[in-house]
């Protein structure tokens, strides 16, 4: 009889990371592309231009950099969220998501430290950037980091269904 995969804490953390971060990335990307808070819904071009203003409010990038981020990030978020959910080449996409989360975290901490009165721009809703945003982003970045490390460790461990090594 085939044995089921052992339910180790490491695998539980990977699954939690995949589900939580995939849901957040997919929703974050969707909300930037379609702006569900605005009625009637605006065209995608308007929604992305509005997101460009949110990126610009962080005062980190020049206008051309703002445009690149604003017109690629929402689609990348949806794609990465789906890849994380599917689990295909998990280590690669988990690493990419961790690097993106680290980038978000640095931007949020910098803006909070500078006292910029801006919205987070994380989702469609106008959410002010507060210490809670910093804490939330920190926790999600930590989750992404742990998930990536565990995914690498898991890949090195022998698969529970594989045949025992011959001595």
């Amino acid at each position, binding site marked *: 009889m085939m044995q089921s995969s052992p339910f180790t804490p490491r695998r539980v953390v990977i699954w939690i990371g995949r589900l939580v971060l995939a849901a957040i990335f997919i929703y974050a990307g969707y909300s930037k592309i379609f*702006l569900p808070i*605005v*009625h*009637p819904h*605006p*065209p995608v*071009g*308007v929604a992305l*231009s*509005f997101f*460009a*203003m*949110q990126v*610009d*409010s962080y*005062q980190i990038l020049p*206008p051309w950099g*703002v*445009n690149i981020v604003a017109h690629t990030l929402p689609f990348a978020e949806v794609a990465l969220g789906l890849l994380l959910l599917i689990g295909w080449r998990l280590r690669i996409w988990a690493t990419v998501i961790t690097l993106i989360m680290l980038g978000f975290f640095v931007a949020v901490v910098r803006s909070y430290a500078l006292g*910029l*009165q*801006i*919205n987070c721009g994380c989702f469609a809703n*106008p959410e*002010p950037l507060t210490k809670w945003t910093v804490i939330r982003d920190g926790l999600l970045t930590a989750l992404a980091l742990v998930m990536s490390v565990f995914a690498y460790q898991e890949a090195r461990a022998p698969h529970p269904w594989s045949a025992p090594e011959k001595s």
Partner: protein
Amino acid sequence: MEVFSDFQCPACKTLYLATNRALMDNYVSSGKVYLIHRDFPLPMHAHSRVAARYARAAAQIGKGEAAEQALFQNQEKWKQSGDVDGTVAAALSSADMTKVRSLVKLGTLEPLIDKDYSLGQTYHVNQTPTTVFHCKGQTYPYAGVMSYEILRQFLDQLLSQK
């Protein structure tokens, strides 16, 4: 476009000087965009309500833009000294300033400032500057400063909507 602004807030000054003046020259004067200044004096700023009173009084005699410019450009000076009167007086003629002072003393401007503040609360404004864009029945609330270049792109996208 409704801009909820506080005359004593440094970010509001940046938005006015770096973005909204260019916006007025290129979009407002040509009639493409209608820009409304809304007073949202934050309680933590000691002189912002007084500044709002003077700016409103100046607006009532057609000198709102001159007063607004003087208040933002000299923000560092009057926020230390509290000399809002002197700051506005330097930008207006003595005859205009007499009218402004009498309007400020009347006390009729206070309900108008409170009305703007209440309107901001209905839009969930909790920081300044907050800009609320309205176009074709859509409402876009935006907090913070944006560069003119990026704002221009957004406005062009909004105006090209069918």
